[in-house]
């Protein structure tokens, strides 16, 4: 595959990416028992954009990422990715559409029984049908990008939390997703390890055309990378706009309260 010899990601000006709508949620409702986490939510993300979801815990931000990753199913509504239906859809269709989406978790969720290298090559080989050599070459490039080349043969337990999270980022990118979902990826890290992970993500945001959906409490990071910030409260988006506006002159009282509490 000729594409595998390229650098991990390159901005391609001729690519159709960067234009149009990539993700669309329509009238999505999600309940856990009596509690309505998302309430008739409409929301879309354009290709190549970096969107950050902020808001108090329990406001439904993480639920959106989990719905998009198909770890949860909505009770009502439709979800579309790149023109293809993700919900409701057949299992076969879900498997196809899901290839466009990658996710990095709060708790890393690396496979402890595999080396760093195999964590990254497992899915490209078994899901995308890449050759082992091509997958390993790509894994090396990605590990270099996240600064962990020398740890390639270690197991996750031998790495720090920050290193594990960087491997998890490389693992998600190895599948060449169009969308990267970042679910509070620094919340489980010791404070001194946060910066390394955020630097890697800043780098990816700057140097690639991947679409990012990010739930975070790191407001400076959100300000740096976001094209758009969505403020959630009680399962609804109460305010949306570019980071300069949301962080400097929010319109909504709830947004002001939230920001003054976290900043």
């Amino acid at each position, binding site marked *: 595959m000729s594409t595998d010899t390229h650098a991990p990601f390159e901005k391609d000006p001729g690519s159709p990416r960067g234009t149009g709508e990539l993700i669309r949620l329509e009238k999505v409702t999600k309940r856990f028992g009596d509690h309505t986490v998302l309430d008739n939510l409409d929301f879309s993300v354009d290709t190549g954009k970096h969107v950050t979801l902020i808001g108090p815990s329990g406001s439904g931000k993480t639920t959106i990422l989990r719905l998009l990753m198909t770890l949860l199913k909505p009770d009502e509504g439709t979800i579309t990715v790149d023109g293809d239906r993700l919900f409701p859809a057949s299992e076969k269709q879900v498997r196809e559409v899901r290839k466009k989406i990658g*996710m990095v978790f709060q708790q890393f969720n690396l496979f402890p*029984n595999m080396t760093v290298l195999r964590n990254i090559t*497992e899915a490209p080989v078994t899901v995308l049908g890449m050759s082992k050599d091509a997958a390993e070459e790509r894994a090396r490039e990605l590990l270099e990008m996240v600064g962990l080349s020398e740890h390639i043969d270690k197991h996750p337990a031998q790495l720090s939390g920050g290193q594990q999270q960087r491997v998890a980022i490389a693992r998600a990118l190895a599948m060449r997703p169009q969308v990267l979902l970042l679910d509070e990826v620094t919340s489980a890290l010791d404070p001194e390890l946060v910066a390394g992970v955020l630097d890697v993500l800043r780098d990816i945001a700057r140097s690639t055309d991947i679409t990012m959906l990010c739930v975070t409490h790191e407001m400076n990071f959100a300000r740096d990378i976001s094209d758009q910030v969505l403020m959630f409260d009680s399962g609804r988006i109460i305010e949306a706009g570019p980071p300069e506006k949301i962080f400097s002159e929010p319109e909504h009282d709830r947004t002001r309260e939230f920001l003054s509490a976290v900043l």
Partner: protein
Amino acid sequence: MKWDWSAVADFMPYFWDGLLVTLQILVLGSLISFALGLVWALLMRVPTRWVTWPVGAVTEFVRNTPLLVQLFFLFYVLPEWGITFSALTTGVFAIGLHYSTYTMQVYRAGIEAVPVGQWEAATALNLPLRRTWTAVILPQAVRRVVPALGNYVISMLKDTPLLMAITVLEMLGEARLFAQQQFQFTEPLTVIGFAFIVISYLASLALRALERRLVH
């Protein structure tokens, strides 16, 4: 009572025969119980009652009836339906089946102990269900349960003399036969008693070595 070394010497040829049979029962029975227990544990996770209910009922029944009764049933009742196996084959199958109903619970605990985040990561990477099981979940689950499986191997060793009841000449069977013919009970029974201790000690050493290898 006096100890007679010549009786020990006379018993030894029979002892080696019995030891071989005991080890066969233990090794084959363990393998059957490990494999079948995993099958039960996986079937119990099939999301339909048409599978889980019968599997649950059968394994519950086998677990809660005595192995000795099962041995008699398989050895004396099945032939009436035209199904006949040698005593050793029947015994190995019975003990393997019986213990599989214990190991299935061990596997279940091991599978449930794998963090849900592992399943989520597998979904996020789009791994097929089969691959998720074989490459992610089972390697972690099995690693966790090796010590518990090992305890059942030792347990099974101590149940192997039950096969004497269906004419299998394992160590106790050989000892009893020798004793009845020679009227010397002390020596053969003492010899096999020591043999049981030595086998379980060696087995636990082997299992500990396996555990250590799996941890790293």
